[in-house]
């Protein structure tokens, strides 16, 4: 998977010495079995299920239409302000990506012929830092994490994106390089479009261009919040926030997440995350089993979490969902 590595020629020659320091980062990818699997899946972007038109395409699990034909804002956040007690698996009109659901019919028709519904496997790498962006992903039931890759090879989650957003809507700078690694945190479905097709549609429809901008606005606001949260809040609160974000975007209380994965996402040792998880379990808000974490008491989890959880949700509401 050498395509993952940044090409030195993209940098000014004077930067080459520093750029070399990125290679150890990437070589970490091949160390463990899971990393081999990551490398194997890297940048394949999951498998395309079919090329059927959206009208007839359905979610493979629920058999419902992938694009909502219902009212705007029909999603897990509707009418529940910032503290939903449950995130319904599907609405009456089926699961959908909320960004796409915001578009008017004309704009959506520009994207529709090029959208493919795909299934994303857990740990698939969709984009890597400094590698060209190939696709824009609109998660439906999948949840995608953006990771910052530190010099030491640590990959730390700094934002999570589910059906309320999109990954890869970067704009402007050429060539289109991803600034972060995007991996699939929770397996599920997504809609995918070639980046060039997306840009073509965005030049023809200002609604699409505006939506991409708004998605970026939310992203930057939430990245900022994570930076603040990581500096100021304890691991227990951060873990609780992280589980809540995952729960919001997942249709079940049971999250298929290992503690090893959690410790990587949160940038702490495995034993440290185990302690924090044990505290949450002793408080009765979660129960963990090998490879799974079950949310038992959502409100309790919110009480443990820092207010950054609410801030992130409000950023989404303020920029993308004014009706809230």
């Amino acid at each position, binding site marked *: 998977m050498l395509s993952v590595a940044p090409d030195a020629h*993209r*940098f*000014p020659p*004077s*930067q080459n010495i*520093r*750029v070399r*320091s990125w290679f150890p980062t990437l070589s970490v990818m091949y160390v463990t079995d899971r990393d081999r699997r990551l490398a194997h899946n890297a940048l394949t972007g999951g498998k395309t299920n079919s090329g059927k038109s959206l009208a007839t395409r359905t979610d493979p699990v629920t058999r419902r239409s992938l694009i909502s034909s219902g009212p705007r804002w029909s999603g897990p956040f509707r009418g529940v302000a910032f503290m939903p007690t449950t995130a319904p698996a599907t609405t009456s009109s089926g699961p959908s990506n909320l960004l796409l659901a915001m578009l008017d019919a004309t704009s959506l028709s520009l994207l529709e012929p090029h959208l493919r519904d795909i299934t994303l496997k857990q740990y698939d790498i969709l984009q890597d830092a400094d590698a060209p962006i190939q696709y824009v992903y609109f998660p439906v039931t999948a949840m995608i994490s*953006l*990771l*910052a890759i*530190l*010099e*030491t090879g*640590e990959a*730390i989650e*700094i934002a999570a994106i589910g059906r309320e957003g999109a990954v890869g809507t*970067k*704009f*402007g*700078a050429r060539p289109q390089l991803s*600034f*972060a690694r995007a991996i699939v945190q929770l397996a599920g479905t997504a809609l995918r479009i070639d980046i060039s097709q997306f840009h073509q549609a965005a030049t023809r429809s200002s609604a699409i261009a*505006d939506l991409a*901008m*708004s998605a*970026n*606005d939310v*992203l*930057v*606001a939430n*990245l*900022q*919040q*994570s*930076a*603040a949260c*990581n*500096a*100021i809040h304890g691991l227990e609160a*951060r873990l609780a926030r992280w589980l809540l974000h995952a729960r919001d975007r997942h249709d079940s209380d049971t999250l298929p997440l290992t503690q090893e994965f959690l410790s990587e996402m*949160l*940038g*702490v040792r495995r034993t440290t995350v185990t302690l924090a998880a044990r505290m949450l379990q002793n408080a009765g808000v979660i129960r963990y089993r090998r490879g799974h974490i079950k949310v038992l008491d959502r409100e309790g989890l919110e009480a443990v979490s820092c*207010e950054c959880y609410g*801030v992130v949700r409000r*950023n989404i509401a*303020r*920029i993308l969902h004014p009706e809230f």
Partner: protein
Amino acid sequence: MPHLEHVPCHREQILVDADSALDHIFFPDSGVVSVMAVYSDGRTIEMATIGREGCAGVQAVFGTSRSSARYWVQIPGSAAKISRAAFTRAVRQMPSFRSLVYAYVQAFTEQVLLSGACNGAHGLKERLARWLLMMRDRSDEDVLPITQNLLAEMLGVQRPTITNAAGELEREGLIERGRRQVTILNRPGLMKASCECYQLLRTRIAFHLPKTYA
């Protein structure tokens, strides 16, 4: 640039407050502006740092009219101020300005991303060294007019905790603490004490904005 107005930025001045209208964008000529998160109990913490390599309020390019963050003058200086309307007009009409603004958005996003990850993963001493180096880059002075209280607030820790970390750097001869200032005595040494995030950040900024701190 008929729309640019040069204004002084006073210490601890709030250029744009959190959750308020983003009416102006500020391009610092000198000094440092901190992007702050404001929590409901009034606690604040720095989320990003802006100097003459960029501008405060670049989110206007996304079409937003409100700011989620507080822009707060950390080290006094001056800035060129432009109304949001004139800024967005310039982005729309001038392709060269647009590319520049987009490049800065990239650089800024990466700064936030990397410092966020660093905040989560690295120890206070490394973070403190990184933060001082970033201040030094943006203010061009070895003497940083920063109190220990401010340091603690910026890094989101208690005052005694920051005193310990700064004390360690001082004992290693890298910095000197004064009553209302921190002096950088040994910049290469401080770079060694810092995590590699500092170099990584500089590399990323230089990549997007070659004419800044390269």
